[in-house]
């Protein structure tokens, strides 16, 4: 039995990584079921090798057959819900800014969210695989190349671009890539220009003033002739009333009197 043990040890399977003592007396040694790997009897090893499982080969090799259509994964309800949420976001908000998100410490993130909330801007984390199909079917196809790597969306029903840029300047890990403001796609430069614009009422007033400049000039030009005539007649009447039957004085040139 000693030689049997030595033979079994030397013919042990190469993948066994146990430590076996070099010499073992079987009679006083381990039992059949041990805690360490025990060498199989050589006959048993031979039997196991012979009776190993061989997969049956298919009659036609799979290379010769047309490949099976890959099963299209059905979307779970969760993905559908997320997609609906993204569609809602694009519908309900006037300003949607897309930023690249590089990992930020937690408290910085909470602080940034807090500051943006003050201006009614919400931070939304999005997954590219959800957003891409939604955008491909909507009218925002040109936003598609923006959605690679990690992104976040800053959405707001108002248009507070200046404040948003100010908050983002203090956060170096979030980089503004582009925005969709009032259904207009803007790049980062576009957003900065948009932020520099004066508010709507001021620009409306400026437009109205610029537009009404020419008509007011025209109306004053048109009124100049009759106004001049009226002034002359008034002066004439005054002189007649004041001077009685004196020679009617020449009407004073109104233009030069205005100049003095």
């Amino acid at each position, binding site marked *: 039995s000693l030689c049997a043990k030595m033979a079994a040890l030397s013919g042990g399977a190469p993948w066994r990584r146990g430590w076996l003592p070099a010499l073992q007396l079987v009679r006083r040694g381990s039992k059949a079921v041990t805690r360490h790997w025990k060498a199989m009897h050589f006959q048993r090893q031979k039997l196991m090798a012979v009776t190993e499982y061989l997969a049956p080969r298919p009659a036609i090799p799979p290379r010769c057959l047309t490949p099976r259509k890959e099963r299209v994964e059905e979307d779970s309800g969760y993905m559908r819900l997320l997609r609906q949420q993204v569609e809602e976001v694009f519908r309900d908000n006037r300003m949607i800014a897309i930023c690249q*998100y590089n990992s930020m410490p937690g408290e910085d993130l909470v602080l940034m969210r807090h500051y943006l909330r003050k201006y009614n801007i919400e931070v939304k984390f999005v997954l590219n695989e959800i957003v891409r199909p939604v955008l491909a079917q909507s009218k925002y196809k040109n936003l598609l190349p*923006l959605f690679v790597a990690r992104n976040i969306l800053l959405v707001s029903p108002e248009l507070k671009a200046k404040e948003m840029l100010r908050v983002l300047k203090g956060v170096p890990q979030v980089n503004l890539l582009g925005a969709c403001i009032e259904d207009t796609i803007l790049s980062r430069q576009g957003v900065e220009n948009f932020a520099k614009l004066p508010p709507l009422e001021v620009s409306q007033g400026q437009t109205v003033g610029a537009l009404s400049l020419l008509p007011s000039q025209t109306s004053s030009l048109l009124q100049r002739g009759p106004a001049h005539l009226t002034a002359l007649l008034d002066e004439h009447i005054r002189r007649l009333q004041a001077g009685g039957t004196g020679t009617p004085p020449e009407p004073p040139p109104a233009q030069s009197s205005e100049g003095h």
Partner: protein
Amino acid sequence: KKMASKIRVVLRPVKSIVVRFCPFESNVESTRKFLGCINHKKIQATNRNCEVTADVRHDGSEPLVDVMFADGERLIMKGANLTTIEMLTALGSRCNAKELKEEQRSKKKSP
């Protein structure tokens, strides 16, 4: 197969990194992922003084990574046809080489 976020780069010999890209182009994916990886807290922790800036343009220029080392050397990687892992390993190997040189120099100074 290595994951890009598992590559550890020691940024000690680096002074600043500028990543320039145009997000509306289609070849910027690897550059953006590179930017995301070097902003990982473990890599940022190796050198707090290293400034990482992202320059977002819209002029159709190709994506670029500009690394300025502390000894004045400059490494420019054009990310249009590079993968993230290639860029990270290139930067990592150069940083390690510089680290070794620094150690040897300091050993020579103080034997």
